[in-house]
């Protein structure tokens, strides 16, 4: 029971963490990406559609990442090149993704009424590690995307704080004028961050359809992109912080299903609302902007 709960928490945390790592990259470059929910939803739909028609999970994953990147490319034109308001543009892309995936879904699958199901990405047992009691099944018996995501956590930390490129990216988010004066291409850096974030959010969406649900329902991302925004704050813009915050959200979601299955009278909505309330409480206590990049949300116009 506990093993299943822990395992399910990690599984639920993974797509959120993927999106959150992407959000961390863009936020460090100075952009707040509200469109992340749209990138995730598009990734979820196109991953499943391509996997269904091609019969190839790998092609599906590729399509999911491409769809996320495409949504973010549109956002990049708006918020980087045209310097429009990032919040409004991002919200527009979220609405766009709900609309476009809904229209395509009904067109392709709604009319035929045929089941829209693909085989799930298989779980891998990591050798003897999976036999450790409790921890084994919880941590070492998942599909490969979970392991990739866990590996991305230290990799992102290394990229951002141990490489010259990471320094450039953070400069674009802290002092874009200064970065520009030093000869860094702020537009290019922010474009790269947004595309990378689109790929990761798209992969998170693909996880939902290909590794978790095995099918698509309208608005399947159900706010997980917005959860990723909260995770970045709750994790204080630190990769392992993000991982911990994602697991907290994952546990809350896993608990919901556990409680419903047990038929308890404890209102599961309480647990579902808890992570959001916790994020608000953290914001109220610590204050919001303390750990965020200085130029977050401000369009940069080259002088």
């Amino acid at each position, binding site marked *: 029971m506990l093993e299943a709960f822990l395992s399910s928490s990690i599984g639920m945390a993974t797509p959120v963490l993927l999106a959150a790592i992407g959000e961390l990259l863009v936020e460090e470059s100075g952009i*707040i990406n*509200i469109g992340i929910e749209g990138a995730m939803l598009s990734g979820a739909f196109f991953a499943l559609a391509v996997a269904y028609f091609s019969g190839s999970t790998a092609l599906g994953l590729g399509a999911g990442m491409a769809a996320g990147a495409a949504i973010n490319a*549109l956002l990049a034109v*708006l918020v980087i*090149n*045209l*310097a*429009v*308001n990032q*919040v*409004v*543009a991002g*919200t*527009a*892309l*979220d*609405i*766009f993704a*709900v*609309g*476009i*995936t*809904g*229209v*395509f*879904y*009904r*067109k392709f699958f*709604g*009319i035929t009424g045929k089941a829209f199901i693909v085989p799930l990405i298989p779980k891998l047992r990591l050798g003897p590690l999976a036999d450790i009691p409790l921890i084994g099944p919880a941590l070492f018996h998942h599909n490969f995307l979970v392991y990739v995501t866990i590996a991305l956590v230290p990799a992102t930390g290394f990229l951002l704080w141990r490489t010259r490129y990471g320094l450039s990216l953070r400069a674009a988010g802290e002092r874009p004028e200064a970065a520009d004066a030093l000869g860094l291409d702020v537009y290019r850096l922010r474009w790269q961050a947004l595309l990378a974030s689109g790929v990761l959010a798209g992969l998170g969406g693909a996880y939902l359809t290909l590794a978790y649900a095995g099918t698509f329902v*309208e608005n399947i991302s159900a*706010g997980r992109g*917005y959860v990723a*925004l*909260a995770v970045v*704050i709750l994790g204080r813009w630190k990769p392992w912080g993000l991982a911990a915050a994602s697991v907290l959200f994952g546990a809350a979601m896993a608990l919901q299903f556990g409680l419903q299955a047990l038929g308890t009278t404890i*209102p599961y*909505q*309480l647990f*579902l*609302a808890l992570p*959001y*309330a916790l*994020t*608000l409480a953290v*914001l*109220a206590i610590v*204050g*919001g*902007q*303390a750990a*965020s990049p200085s130029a977050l*949300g401000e*369009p940069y116009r080259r002088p």
Partner: protein
Amino acid sequence: MIVSSLARALGAVVLAAAIVALVLLALGASPIGAFVALAEGAFGNWYALTDTVVKATPLVFTGLAISVSFSGALWNIGADGQLVAGAIAAGAIGPWLGGWPRPAAIAILLAAGAAGGALWGGICGWLRARRDTNEVISTIMMNFVAAQLLSWSVHGPLIEASRAYPASTPIAESAHMYMFFSPSRLNLGIVLAIALAVGCYLFLFKTAAGFELRAMGRNRRAATFFGIPTARLTILILTVSGAMAGIGGAVQVSAITHRLYEKMSPGWGFEAIAVALVARLNPIGIIFSSLLFGALDNGSQAVQRGQGVSAELVQVIQALVIIILLAFDTPMFDRLRNSLSAAARPVSRTTTTELSDA
């Protein structure tokens, strides 16, 4: 100025419709058939026409919430949660209003809605003003808290007597909104919405506080420097903004649903962003842009029935309208337009609105 605003808004809607027509062609559906079905569904008969107004009503309330907060560069993405919070408050108090005369019962219900929404918005205002917390994040979080609170309410404390369905006990009949032209669903809500829009217009453009708010929207730092109490204004505006969305939720309970369900809003708080941008944040304009989007919502149901195209098509249109209007407001578009127009006339820099600056 007004003519050019109108031209831009209409241009954006036409351009969005053209793109959607291409999407429909790509899907193998007939754009003309879809648009005809849309128009018939929205205006084709008396019932369709009145229901377009009914569907526009919550959009006026949430659109005003967006208009007032965006005017001060307060990016309230939480009108949806504020509307739901207002609906919960109204749905909770509604069953207890049996003994009251009808006008008083309705007033109490709407006041409860305003209070619920005000609480939801006010918390985010306080977080922004006193804890330097980005209101975008806090308002989004509050959307989720409201959704879970609603779900819990209709499964738990407010569940109807038989406990069979996730819905609340019906509100007292004395709290039912005044209805017009029965059996249509037209009701006093739209009149209240229009009155509120006029009030918002007077506040924004005829009062000192409205001027201060718009100054804050242009440049918060400069406004603080000139002695405008930006912190107090932030709390006040997000509270009022939430209250207006909350009244929208209460009106929905009072006039249409008469009780709470798990899903009270199909995303009116987000659609309101498109509504407000088309109106260029002008409260009077919001009445008309709400009717436009109400018609789209209403007509899209007919498109789904008749043409087999998902009603979510309307969300594609909403998003495209927002994106196109954002792009229209950039200096780059002004340059493009200048280079295209042979009789180049000077373009006022003020047309580059605060939306692209903030």
